[in-house]
């Protein structure tokens, strides 16, 4: 039994102060066994509002004629608290009163729950769920000890949050609804996610699929997808880390973004996989700007046909998606099952980076300084390029070879010694290399910037070898073999060197020339090796519409768990119509609203298919 036990308080007449929008007819009772929604209203009781023209005697007679009894007369004029007759249901009674010309409206006697907060130790940092005006700290950043990237409005305005604690009094368990995170994968071994991953059975033992590497292991090697997953459904009330919108969830990991992003192909496969394996909510915190992608749009339409809600991020360029020149897909797709989300800061101002659009972006949600799960620990290993490099040159003694130098105030490795005021030697083979300890890392990338002025027939190379030897002596891997004329501009370049992980990863550079023309040579600066060590205990504080989108996807999942009969259209309607107006979103989104979890949970969609008969 996953449902947390919460004290229940029945509050007569609470409808006067709580923004439930029910005006006629009860919500259909949920059928899910796991949902706490079975305690939605008191069995055998209804609240009836008689029209002002109806006398007390007449209303009492009406109630008695149905075999009902008055339990209490509420303080609000015309309202009666009624006990229905034996053998009659609340539904039948409400229908009867709704058809009575003396009755203005009738509703169930709803049960209100005490607002619930989980015991997760970092819950106090989750301003999106409970904004008390707290300052979000930099205690959880990646790499560790790096500063927060969005200091604006930190702290923010108390109360500017998703209004979720009251909703948690009704439901915390969304595990009856599969939600797919179509992203960089998920660290499904994380201490705060493992118990909430989708059960993919023997075919998908790692809770999803990897369309980048085309295997069934969607482990996250970036962090983004794990962060998104934690916002939706980090295990709540487990005394670890954070909590998600849903305390219990069924999260499907679909990896479509690799180190260099994803493509139409991976994303389409990801959406189709999610749909065909039962996901009813899909989150895609990704995008590409510019051109309409028909096949991606077709995949969203197929999801719509399968009654799946798709929640997507608006984008992080601080621009208008509707301008005509800068659409962002999938945000700008127009299917009705798609909700596009902008990011709000801690004072519910539109975040400076958030894209917007009065026709394409639907709602806002918290998207700055969001603490959530992360796939591991990032580390940056810079090198000062002024010691420890071993060099060799076939033309040493004539000024050839690699040297430490300061170029324009930047410490660099250069070849030739006079760079950039001379030229490298003809017929030379100049090498320089250094070993780094990358033991224990899961991923490693090499980053440096280089100004390369090397002519045809000559070569500038970067390479590595996983032992402490010259990478260009035959056993190494060449990462880059280039020529060009870029001085004074340096180009920043990143290479995956994960195959080099070990205690003696040796990185090297080579300048090799023939006997003919030569040029200025090469200047290398800004050297670092970045590593990611996957573990099960990391957290990170991030900013982006990528973080706002899963707040909404979590809400959609919760709505589907609470109202199992809801269609995707009902879910979208409850999210968009029940939101809270926010001035910063007015004219910049289709609704001008931020999501409100409790209001959406209580929002009852207008019934369809009814025919009014005038008699």
């Amino acid at each position, binding site marked *: 039994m996953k449902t947390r036990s919460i004290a229940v308080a029945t509050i007569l007449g609470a409808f006067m102060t709580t923004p439930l929008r029910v005006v006629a007819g009860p919500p259909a009772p949920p059928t899910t066994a796991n949902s706490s929604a079975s305690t939605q209203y008191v069995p055998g009781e209804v609240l009836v509002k008689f029209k002002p023209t109806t006398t007390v005697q007449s209303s009492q007679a009406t109630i008695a004629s149905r075999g009902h009894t008055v339990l209490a007369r509420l303080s609000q004029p015309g309202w009666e608290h009624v006990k229905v007759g034996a053998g009659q249901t609340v539904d039948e009674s409400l229908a009867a009163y709704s058809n009575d010309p003396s009755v203005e409206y009738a509703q169930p006697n709803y049960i209100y729950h005490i607002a619930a907060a989980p015991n997760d130790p970092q819950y106090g940092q989750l301003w999106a769920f409970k904004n008390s005006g707290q300052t979000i700290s930099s205690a959880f950043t990646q790499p560790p000890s790096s500063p927060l990237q969005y200091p604006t409005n930190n702290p923010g305005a108390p109360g500017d949050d998703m209004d979720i604690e009251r909703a948690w009094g009704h439901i915390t368990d969304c595990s009856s609804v599969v939600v797919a995170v179509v*992203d*960089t994968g998920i660290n499904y071994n994380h201490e705060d996610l493992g118990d909430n991953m989708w059960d993919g059975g023997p075919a998908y033992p790692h809770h999803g699929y990897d369309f980048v590497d085309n295997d069934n292991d969607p482990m996250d090697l*970036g962090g*983004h997808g794990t962060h998104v997953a934690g916002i939706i459904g980090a295990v709540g009330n487990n005394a670890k880390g954070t909590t998600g919108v849903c305390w219990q969830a069924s999260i499907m990991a679909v990896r*479509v*973004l690799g180190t*260099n*992003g*994803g*493509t*139409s*192909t991976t*994303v*389409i*496969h990801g959406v*189709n996989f999610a749909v065909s394996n039962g996901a009813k909510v899909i989150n895609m*915190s*990704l*995008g*590409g*700007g*510019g*051109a309409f*992608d*028909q*096949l*991606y749009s*077709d995949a969203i339409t*197929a999801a719509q046909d399968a009654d799946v809600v798709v929640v997507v*991020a608006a*984008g*992080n*360029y*601080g*621009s208008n998606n509707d301008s005509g020149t*800068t659409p*962002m*897909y999938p945000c700008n797709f127009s299917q009705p099952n798609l909700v596009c989300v902008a990011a709000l800061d801690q004072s519910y101002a*539109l975040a*400076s*980076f*958030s894209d*917007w659009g009065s026709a394409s972006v639907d709602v806002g949600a918290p998207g700055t300084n969001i603490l959530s799960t992360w796939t591991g620990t990032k580390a940056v290993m810079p090198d000062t390029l002024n010691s420890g490099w071993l060099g060799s040159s076939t033309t040493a003694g004539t000024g050839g070879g690699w040297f430490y130098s300061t170029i324009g105030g930047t410490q660099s490795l250069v070849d030739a010694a006079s760079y950039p005021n001379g030229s490298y030697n003809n017929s030379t083979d100049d090498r320089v290399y250094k070993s780094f300890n990358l033991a224990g890392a899961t991923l490693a990338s090499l980053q440096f910037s280089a100004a390369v002025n090397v002519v045809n027939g000559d070569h500038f190379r970067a390479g590595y070898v996983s032992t402490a030897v010259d990478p260009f002596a035959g056993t190494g891997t060449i990462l880059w073999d280039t020529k060009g004329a870029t001085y004074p501009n340096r180009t920043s370049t990143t290479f995956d060197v994960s195959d080099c992980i070990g205690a003696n990863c040796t990185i090297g550079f080579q300048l090799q020339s023939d006997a003919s023309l030569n040029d200025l040579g090469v200047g290398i600066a800004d050297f670092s090796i970045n590593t990611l060590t996957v573990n099960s205990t990391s957290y990170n504080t991030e900013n*982006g*519409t*990528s973080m706002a989108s899963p707040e909404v996807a979590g809400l959609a999942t919760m709505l589907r768990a609470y109202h199992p009969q809801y269609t995707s259209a009902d879910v979208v309607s409850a999210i968009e119509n029940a939101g809270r107006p926010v001035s910063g979103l007015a004219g910049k989104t289709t609704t001008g609203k931020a999501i409100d979890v409790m209001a959406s949970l209580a929002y009852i969609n207008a019934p369809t298919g009814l025919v009014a008969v005038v008699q």
Partner: protein
Amino acid sequence: MAMEKPRPPQDGVPGEYLVTLAAQVDAKVISDVYGRFGIKRIQGLNLSYANVFRVVFAEDPGLARMEELRIQDARIEAVQPNFVYRAN
């Protein structure tokens, strides 16, 4: 005031296109029409709602040339880049 930053162009993977064929049309037509550009790989996407193939070329013919050839053969319904998407 939002701080707008320039967006990167909507790139496609160089030399890769998604070709939609009419229903029941065999992938061989792709080689017939586009083989002149040196096809490295044809991969069916196996979509239930469309007959789509990912085509990887040795040399990128460019979308304009791909489109030019498409409109001459009714068996090919559409051609588009294999667009790049990134986390945001």
